[in-house]
């Protein structure tokens, strides 16, 4: 399949498409840079059908242009009522041949599709890394299940995975239909309430890959992104071990004040910080919020300024989001932000 992929790239249009997809410092969210076996096979299927499509388009237009150039007249002639029967017969044969070729091409596409589909189901492992992902309006709940409940990890919007091993995402939705899609890694899958579904994939290259909800899910469908962070198995294990710990106690008076604001204000009505009194599951789990690179479903970078802005007026950033505005005083807000940032 690789051979075909490279052959087809000689087409000029293909080159343009390719360049267009490579330009800029875009976060990795494109099907043209596959980093796993699934997305690589899909890209192969794409170039296969793309080459066929270009060929068909060119051939059809050669015939159309030929017809237009051939017997063109500039006045309205009387209709030709009795076309030459031999010529009609000849054209009929050509139409039949063209239909036959169409059938062959269609079977080629069907065959390639069935084989690729089968491959999509081929990644099986008795011992995959199992991750649970649930869609919410408008964020992603991520869990790393464990038989020992105290080792169960819940986080949000950032999915750490080890490279080179099969991974299965067990998915579901907590409200409306969402669709999980990280094009560099695998095609999308809808998360439908009442139906569970499993997505198998493998990532072979370390890096951060962006994904986004692909099924319209209401007001903030546009701001429902996530990151898949692929790292070496050792780094992944270290991360997981860190996430399994409850939140550390505040190290100084400011952080203690921040924790106090969190527990006595509205925050704890929706959020969990393991190791504190906050234990609600309406919003994302914040136990290790300080270790994440982004907030608000990959809408803002995770830095003190963005976090403070988000906490005081989330409606200005994601209008319609479920989180209410929090009019805190300056010192309270600063302490709260410092506390959250300390939760590595």
């Amino acid at each position: 399949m690789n051979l075909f992929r490279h052959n087809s790239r000689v087409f000029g249009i293909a080159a343009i498409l390719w360049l267009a997809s490579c330009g800029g410092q875009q976060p990795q969210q494109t099907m043209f840079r596959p980093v796993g076996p699934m997305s690589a096979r899909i890209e192969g299927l794409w170039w296969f059908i793309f080459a066929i499509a270009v060929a068909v388009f060119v051939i059809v237009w050669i015939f159309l242009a030929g017809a237009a150039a051939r017997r063109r007249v500039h006045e309205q002639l009387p209709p030709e009522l009795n076309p030459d029967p031999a010529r009609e017969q000849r054209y009929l044969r050509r139409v039949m041949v063209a239909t036959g070729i169409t059938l062959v091409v269609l079977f080629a596409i069907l065959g390639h599709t069935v084989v690729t589909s089968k491959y999509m189901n081929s990644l099986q492992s008795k011992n995959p890394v199992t991750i649970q992902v649930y869609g919410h309006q408008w964020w992603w709940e991520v869990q790393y299940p464990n038989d020992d409940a105290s080792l169960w990890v819940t986080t949000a919007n950032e999915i750490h995975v080890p490279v080179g091993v099969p991974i299965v995402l067990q998915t579901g939705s907590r409200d409306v239909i969402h669709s999980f899609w990280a094009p560099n890694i695998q095609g999308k899958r809808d998360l439908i309430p009442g139906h569970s579904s499993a997505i198998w994939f493998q990532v072979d290259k370390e890096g951060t890959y962006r994904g986004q909800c692909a099924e319209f899910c209401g007001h903030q469908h546009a701001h429902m992104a996530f990151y898949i962070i692929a790292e070496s198995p050792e780094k992944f294990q270290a991360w997981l071990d860190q996430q399994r710990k409850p939140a550390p106690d505040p190290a100084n008076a400011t952080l203690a004040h921040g924790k106090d604001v969190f527990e006595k204000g509205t925050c704890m009505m929706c959020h969990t910080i393991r190791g504190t009194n906050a234990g609600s599951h309406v919003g994302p789990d914040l136990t290790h919020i300080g270790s994440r690179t982004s907030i608000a479903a990959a809408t803002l970078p995770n830095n003190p300024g963005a976090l403070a802005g988000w906490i005081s007026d989330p409606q200005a950033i994601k209008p319609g989001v479920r989180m209410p505005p929090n009019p805190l005083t300056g010192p309270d807000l600063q302490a709260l932000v410092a506390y959250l940032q300390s939760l590595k």
Partner: protein
Amino acid sequence: MSTVENISATTPHLDRHERLSLTWGDPPGILGWFMTVNHKRVGKRFMITAFIFFLLGGLLAVLMRLQLSRPENHFLGPDKYNQIFTMHGSTMMFLFAVPMMFEALSVYFVPLMVGARNIAFPRLNAFSYYVYVFGGIMLWVAFVYNAGPDVGWFAYPPLSGPAFTPGKRADFWAQMITFTELSGLAVAVEVVVTVMKTRAPGMSLNRLPIFCWAEVITSLMVIFAMPAVMLSSTMLIMDRLIATHFFNPSEGGDALLYQHMFWFFGHPEVYIIFIPGTGIVSTIIAAFSRRKVFGYTALVLSTVATGFIGFGVWVHHMFATGLPQLSENFFTAASLMIVVPTGVQFFCWIATLWSGRLHFELPMQWIGGFFFVFLIGGLTGLMLAAVPLDWQVHDTYFVVAHFHYVLLGGAVFPLFGAFYYWFPKITGRMLGEALGKLHFWLFFIGFNLTFFPMHILGLRGMPRRIYTYPVEMHWGSVNALESIGAILMGLGVLAFIWNVFQSNRFGRIAGADPWGAGTLEWATTSPPPNYNFLDLPTVGGREPLWENAPDQPIVTGVREDMREVLVTRPMDAEPEHLTLYPSPTIWPFLTSLAVTGLFIGSIFTPWAVVWGAIPVAITLTGWFWPTKKETEEKKEIEVWENR
């Protein structure tokens, strides 16, 4: 005093034209406007109304393009944007595409092309127009008052359910479906009966113009597809209004069931829009290649095959829902199979062009545009049929590009061709040449500039239905280019509108048959008189104006002092008997008002179904109550038949 005496006894001095005009005419004045049952008046209303909705939908598209022209734009917020894209899709699909491609064109042209004096069930026809326009007005009034639907044109539950979309927004959407599909079903029945029972003698089924074949097959698809969406939208509105929980997973309902029901309609729907387009393409190509279309039988059978296979591919809209591999591959095969009849049609058209003596006029340039645009859309359709590839491009801008290429390519380009082709028949004047060319090139270039880059955006990860996107995704410059294209398209449509107004007044006089075409609508004057044909024609070939004998007989013995029509047999169009068509009346209008009251009222209270049924019953009784005049006429025919 009966009409019979009215016209024949008291006015012996009238010539045939005047007598027929009197018989088939409408009462004068504003009341007559609401009473008309003439298929050409109703058809023109369908056309103008659907075109206005096309303009409104296009305006929304321009607003969306302005919002997306740069990243993090604050021109429209998510609430407005979500309403606008839902209104754009719903307006274009339900209030423009189907009413225009199917209802407007078939109501106006099918009776003319089969040589009939009016469409079958003319009062139902008037009713279907009023129901359609009231449904459209309801949706747009709701939108203007900030109660426009905001759940996408296919309104998937649970998002469209009572828990996640409170208020009345989604109810207006669901009820609009009821209005428009009721209208579509009524027209479908009329078209089937018009074609099967009122063709001119000699027009056996294998001589039926391909455009009429297309509209009949579309009608049959409407009859089988539209009940599915009326059912699903009614179940949705019941979930919302009386808590039936059909689609509520937390009460044992199933959200996926809705998708199956919707797309069982939704995929045939795109063929309902596209098949009339193929009929237009065959018609225009034959007229300007100066020969009968190559492979008539193959073209007709391909259209029939498309109609059948179109019902077996709906799951390709649901590949990402996680169905078993075997069933997904089955629907891949079915979706690829539909390429075969479309391919056969393409090959027959190319053969027609190749062997004809091509005469390139304004309608033909749109056919050229059709070949370019629709072909690209069809080829990206191959990609979407392949399940794993669909997982990547489904619900992205790639799909947005694909369906605009097939729907505008398969419907709007042929439709503009049809406007240039049939405008002389409807108005008696030709559309202007220079503005016509300007219109085509602005629209064609603007279209490709708008939609071709969307393929690339989709592959580069841009999902559809997002109201904004971050700067760092680098989608901004391509989006800006697309927005410029959208403005060019808009300018093209303005050139067309200007051309229509200009040519309607000052255009060159067309005459009966300006293109030298062969089908029956060109046998009468332009515009046609209210009775269509002075002498009811008979038909001696597929293109009667080309092939009829010089001494081709005409139909005689049909009374001209009452609305008598000839009914023929379905297969060979041999005369069967004579019947009377109903006269103009206000009742279909009043019935549509009563139905509108019931439908809109039921959004607000279930009691509207109970109390609203009373005016519906009263107006329907009035509609079917025989008048003295009609009874007299029927008696008169009885005497004639017994003689």
